[in-house]
């Protein structure tokens, strides 16, 4: 066991079981999966992407490229989970991935032998012959080999949530810098959010044996966290990674609420927060970088800072005999910590020739690691000493440190590039690149603990000043202030493959090949070799890659430049970003007033403009929707039908200039409409195309109510507001949407008046309510509105009552209609009725057709301007060859007519050049006893009586049709007026 006898911030009093690849192991609360695996002597945890090389744990953070496992089973299986950040819980089940049949014996490890042929971009140069083999042979093989973990293919069974937070100051990272900043701002009374992706606040203070103000670093951190927790104006957010820096102070953040628990018990596993901040401080620390040398990817080779974290925070030794390789004092620091923990250190290999030796360890100044041995786990390292000698050092773990890269990620999310600093041989955050965001601590290149505290405090003070708050006194605790003493070392020259990007298997050789092939710009280097495109997004590999390209091209590292930093900072589950999109959650439902009644009547549903509308109402004995639909059509044509039309947009328009306003937005004239009358109206977009149609009712001299189609209600309202506020600000007009205020029902059919008069408090007749009349009525004492309008072509009304009475009215109407031999009808019947009558819907006015095309040129009134009029007069909009709306009925053998069929001349061919139009709407007309359709036909109005074909190539139906005038039904309109 590699669990150290003492130390660490784990709870040794409790043991928790977990499993890895089927083996049951135990760990302690406070462990991550990675620390628990190390404590159980598990070294081999994964396989690399391309060569399937055996891999171990490299880091102790979210940048981990190797230790990715599948977590959980069945639908809950989560691929690519970083063992280094997954907290241990009882019953955790982890499985290694991207290997077959087992982690130890992985068949695809042969790829490693083929490596000479699998260099950078090899796939662009082959697999081209024979042509058809790509989809059938090569690609399936490549696809199966590629990829890391497996999705279950089943719906994600867990809960996720999203939320909004607001603060004066967002502090990202709770190491010494972030804690200090949050403390200063919290004490000053600012609304502070302190977020850290780790479970515990403290950052490196948890991983190092440092003292702050005389107490252990982690104790100081715990003390500050406790004070912050007590302040009502501070929100502490552990387990929360800030993922992206967006415009104007907006940040995305992922809180892992229950990922550390065996069961979430109704809580979301994760919450994706949108944080709106006035100021922000990035105190995200730094990420240690590996050194590239031959076979630097063996299990057991680990970042030195991670080794210290495993020892100091988790009491887990990554090895029994550890060698250390570094280019700074991080090496000596690691040796001291290892020794303090009682771990044998077999050598300190320090690349700096002048490095001072610590006590009690074989020391090699000016030496380099040139190779390593051990297939499934490190056995030894080979070094070249300062004098050129070669030595082999036994070690099952190598702690390596190539220096630290400030965690600049978030500061570069708005296209800025980081700035190079020679003194620390690293890129630091650029100033002002994200307005309102500044970096502090190691993220700003302030590498000592004192400097972290100081820069954190300074950043907080500056933010407080910006926020108009006074900073109080917040003294700095005393802390180490060691200078950064580092000699840059990116790779060790020599034979063998030296890894840069561990997961994507990009080696120094690949960079050299990219250079040879002239993929020299960094972005080409990245794309050609895939360097930095793995799950760590180059956090560990990019800078070394650039450094090597710099060497090859004789340029400096900043001249080579970095690739683009993009959100998210750490990968985020789609389930969290898209929380509540699943199931019914993607968009709100809208219910009509007759919803309950329709449910009782067994309606079949369809959706329009988020509304759920009844499509038809099946009755016993009906097995097919058309049977129900035709029965409902018959009711309307012969008796009376009731249909909920509440969904149509209704806009109340009032004001001295209301009529003038309507004249401008409608193609036709509304100012001449008499009170208590309704007129059909057409609106164009400014490009001359029909936007919507509806009715306009004049309720008073300066009072109108217009209707829109269901789907266009929102857009038309916005359009009218635009015209009123922006184009015609002088017009004195006001509008209010009353769609929801009024429940409205169509009462259609020859018995509609009979039905109505059985309900209204005062009778109506052809004089009080002629066709296209409207006015107030009362029923049961409730003030209502009655419109004599008809979409069906029958004598019909629409009756509106305040929505609370909608359900009651619907029931009443239906009961009366039932008694008169009619009843409820749905959208399908409505559609048949309107096609028979030649009325258009958005199937016809689909956004491409003009008033001319829908055969309503006279709807565009002369002598006044209106929206869209000028553009509708462009030559291309009026030429005779444009499609025009006509009716079709089968000529000869009665065949199916299908919407979407294309129109072709009788002797023509169904090829693009000969298409004359298409069918927009089609149905079987129960009234006429044969199929009918509406269609656009080039120059159609002049061709009434011609025959033409409607060809549905998809369904293989070719129907000879006669072009007929619209409407099909009651062309004289006698039934309307009846």
């Amino acid at each position: 066991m590699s669990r150290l006898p003492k130390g660490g911030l784990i709870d040794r009093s409790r043991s928790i079981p977990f499993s890895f690849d089927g083996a049951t192991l135990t760990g302690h609360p406070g462990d991550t999966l990675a620390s628990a695996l190390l404590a159980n002597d598990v070294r081999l945890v994964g396989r690399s992407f391309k060569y399937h090389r055996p891999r171990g744990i490299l880091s102790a953070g979210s940048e981990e490229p190797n230790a990715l496992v599948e977590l959980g089973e069945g639908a809950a299986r989560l691929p690519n989970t970083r063992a280094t950040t997954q907290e241990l819980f009882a019953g955790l089940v982890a499985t290694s991935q991207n290997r077959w049949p087992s982690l130890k014996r992985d068949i695809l490890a042969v790829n490693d032998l083929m490596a000479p042929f699998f260099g950078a971009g090899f796939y662009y140069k082959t697999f081209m012959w024979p042509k058809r083999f790509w989809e059938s042979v090569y690609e399936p093989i490549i696809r199966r080999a590629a990829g890391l973990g497996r999705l279950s293919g089943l719906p994600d069974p867990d809960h996720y949530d999203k939320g909004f937070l607001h603060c004066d100051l967002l502090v990202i990272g709770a190491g010494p810098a972030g804690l200090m900043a949050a403390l200063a701002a919290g004490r000053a009374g600012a609304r502070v959010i302190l977020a850290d992706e780790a479970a515990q606040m403290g950052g490196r203070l948890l991983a190092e044996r440092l003292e702050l103000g005389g107490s252990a670093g982690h104790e100081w951190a715990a003390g500050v966290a406790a004070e912050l927790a007590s302040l009502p104006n501070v929100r502490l957010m552990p387990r929360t990674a800030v993922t992206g820096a967006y415009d104007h102070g907006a940040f995305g953040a992922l809180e892992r609420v229950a990922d550390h628990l065996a069961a979430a018990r109704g809580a979301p596993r994760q919450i994706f927060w949108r944080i709106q901040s006035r100021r922000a401080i990035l105190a995200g620390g730094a990420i240690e970088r590996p050194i590239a040398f031959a076979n630097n990817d063996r299990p057991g080779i680990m970042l030195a800072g991670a080794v210290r974290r495993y020892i100091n925070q988790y009491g887990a030794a990554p090895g029994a005999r550890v060698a250390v390789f570094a280019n700074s004092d991080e090496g000596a620091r690691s040796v001291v910590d290892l020794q303090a923990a009682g771990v044998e250190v077999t050598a300190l290999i320090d690349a700096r020739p002048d490095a001072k030796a610590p006590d009690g360890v074989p020391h090699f100044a000016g030496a380099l690691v040139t190779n390593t041995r051990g297939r499934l786990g490190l056995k030894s390292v080979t070094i070249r000493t300062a004098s050129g000698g070669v030595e082999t050092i036994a070690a099952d773990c190598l702690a390596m440190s190539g220096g630290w890269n400030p965690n600049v990620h978030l500061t570069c999310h708005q296209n800025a590039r980081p700035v190079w600093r020679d003194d620390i041989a690293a890129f630091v955050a650029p100033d002002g690149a994200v307005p309102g965001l500044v970096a502090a601590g190691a993220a700003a290149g302030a590498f000592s603990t004192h400097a972290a505290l100081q820069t954190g405090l300074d950043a907080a003070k500056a933010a407080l000043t910006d926020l108009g708050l006074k900073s109080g006194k917040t003294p700095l605790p005393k802390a180490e202030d060691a200078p950064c003493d580092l000699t840059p070392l990116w790779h060790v020259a020599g034979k063998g493959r030296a890894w840069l990007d561990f997961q994507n298997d990009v080696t120094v050789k690949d960079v050299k090949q990219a250079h040879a092939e002239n993929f020299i710009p960094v972005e080409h280097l990245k794309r050609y070799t895939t360097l930095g495109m793995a799950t760590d997004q180059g956090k560990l590999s990019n800078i070394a890659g650039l450094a090597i390209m710099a060497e090859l091209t004789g340029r400096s590292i900043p001249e080579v430049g970095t690739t683009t930093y993009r959100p998210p900072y750490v990968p985020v589950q789609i389930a969290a970003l898209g929380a509540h999109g699943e199931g019914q959650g993607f968009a709100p439902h809208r219910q009509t007033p007759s919803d309950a009644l329709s449910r009782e009547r067994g309606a079949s549903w369809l959706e329009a403009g988020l509304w759920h509308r009844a499509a038809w109402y099946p009755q016993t004995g009906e097995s097919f929707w058309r049977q129900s639909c035709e029965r409902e059509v018959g009711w309307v044509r012969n008796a009376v039908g009731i249909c909920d039309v509440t969904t149509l947009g209704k806009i109340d328009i009032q004001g001295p200039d209301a009529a003038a306003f309507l004249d401008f937005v409608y193609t036709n004239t509304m100012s001449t409409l008499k009170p208590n009358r309704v007129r059909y109206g057409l609106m164009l977009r400014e490009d001359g195309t029909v936007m919507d149609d509806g009715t306009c009712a004049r309720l008073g001299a300066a009072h109108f109510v217009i209707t829109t189609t269901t789907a266009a209600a929102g857009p038309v309202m916005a359009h009218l507001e635009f015209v009123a506020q922006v184009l015609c600000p002088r017009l004195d007009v006001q509008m209010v949407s009353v769609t929801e205020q009024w429940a409205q029902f169509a009462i259609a059919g020859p018995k509609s008046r009979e039905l109505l008069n059985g309900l209204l408090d005062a009778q109506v007749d052809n004089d009080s309510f002629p066709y296209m009349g409207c006015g107030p009525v009362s029923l049961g004492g409730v003030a209502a509105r009655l419109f004599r309008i008809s979409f069906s072509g029958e004598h019909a009304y629409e009756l509106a009552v305040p929505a609370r009475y909608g359900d009651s009215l619907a029931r009443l109407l239906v009961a009366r209609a039932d008694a008169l031999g009619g009843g409820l009808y749905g959208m399908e019947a409505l559609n048949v009725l309107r096609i028979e009558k030649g009325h258009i819907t958005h199937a016809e006015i689909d956004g491409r057709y003009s008033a001319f095309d829908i055969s309503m040129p006279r709807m565009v009134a002369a002598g006044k301007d209106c929206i869209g009029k000028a553009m509708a007069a462009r030559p291309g909009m009026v030429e005779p060859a444009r499609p025009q709306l006509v009716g079709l009925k089968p000529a000869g053998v009665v065949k199916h007519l299908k919407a979407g069929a294309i129109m072709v001349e009788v002797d023509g061919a169904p090829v693009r050049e000969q298409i004359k139009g298409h069918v927009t709407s089609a149905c079987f007309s129960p009234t006429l006893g044969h199929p009918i359709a509406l269609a656009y036909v080039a120059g159609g109005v002049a061709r009434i009586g011609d025959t033409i074909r409607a060809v549905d190539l998809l369904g293989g139906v070719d129907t000879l049709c006669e072009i007929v005038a619209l409407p099909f039904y009651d062309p004289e309109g006698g039934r309307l007026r009846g």
Partner: protein
Amino acid sequence: MRYSAFQILKQGLTGNKGWTPVWRNPTPKAEYDVIIIGGGGHGLATAYYLAKNHGLSNIAVLERGYLGGGNVGRNTTIVRANYHLNGNSEFYSHSLKLWEGLEQELNYNAMMSQRGVINLCHSDGQFDFYAERGNRIRAQGDDAELLDREGVKKHAPFLNFSNERFPIRGGLLQRRGGTARHDAVAWGFARGADMRGVDLIQNCEVTGIDITAGRVTGVQTTRGAIRAKRVGMAVAGRSSQVGQMAGLRLPIESHVLQAFVTEGLKPIIPGVITFGVGHFYISQSDKGGLVFGGDIDGYNSYAARGNMPIMEHVMEAGMAMMPALGKARVLRGWGGIVDMTMDGSPIIDKTPVEGLFFNGGWNYGGFKATPASGWCFAHLIATGNHSEHATKLLMNRFATGHVLDEERTGAQPNKH
């Protein structure tokens, strides 16, 4: 150097030391017969076809950044020929045919993968619209199938078929559609052009267009002035800026379109799936990442990065359509600047300046056009006449009213 399995073997056995530059780094000459502004997919393809189809050789492509760094290098790689309107249909149809032979043509594996594109629909109205589109595609000579719900279920069983917010009514499937490896397309055309003598000049931003007496004479660049007899613009999202250098005002707005990729996963998604109601589309790259996107953010932008609301909308749509996506992690999101025209269709045309040609307005869909765009633009530049495949993609269509409004949403790009 000709690429082949044999070449890989040979190089592999000799330590991979013999690979040669995929293209040269020439210094700009003082004068070219043709200058193409923009080293994106279209610019590079244009140069390639100018050399290949029209025998021109004194050509330069000027690129402000690195070759293929624009939208060609950041798109969701969907290739299809399922357009509606005369003008677009024949153009994209031609393009798909060129895609089908591209690897052999370029001796570069662009990984054109014809695993099908399916557009899901959710209402009878949409179904009818797709029927019309399908019929028109078939009339053009391309493939299309209209699947009902059961058919979709067979094709993509992991979609949400129970408790769906927008029940799947059917889908329009084009089996010849698919994806291609975006970078390889740019690199393949670049390499092909370079091999035919075209000078590919990177880090060379055009800052001015020289015009004398209504005729183009050359360009000003960050690497000095270069004379040219003819100049073609293929700068996508930057069309308005470069156009302005020649006094052109364009029917174009530049918008940001975001896209996303997940961590690598074992194969799960066949071909391309689009979810119309949610403006969502997804495919899986050969590397295993799920590549997906949605609508443009909806405001003018040259920032090539977007904001959270659209990103979240895309993710929610993904969850609505494919709840199994929940366990996939988004690895990276990015943005590209797309050149949105007022009718959503592109422009390949002459300009009022003699010798200056315009190619742009590709909206969010110009990757699939890459080969045909290069083909037709080269034809126009070389001959002065429109190629038979692109006779209607004209600049003046907004004045004449012959607009090509595929999406039927009118002159407001963020509604397309």
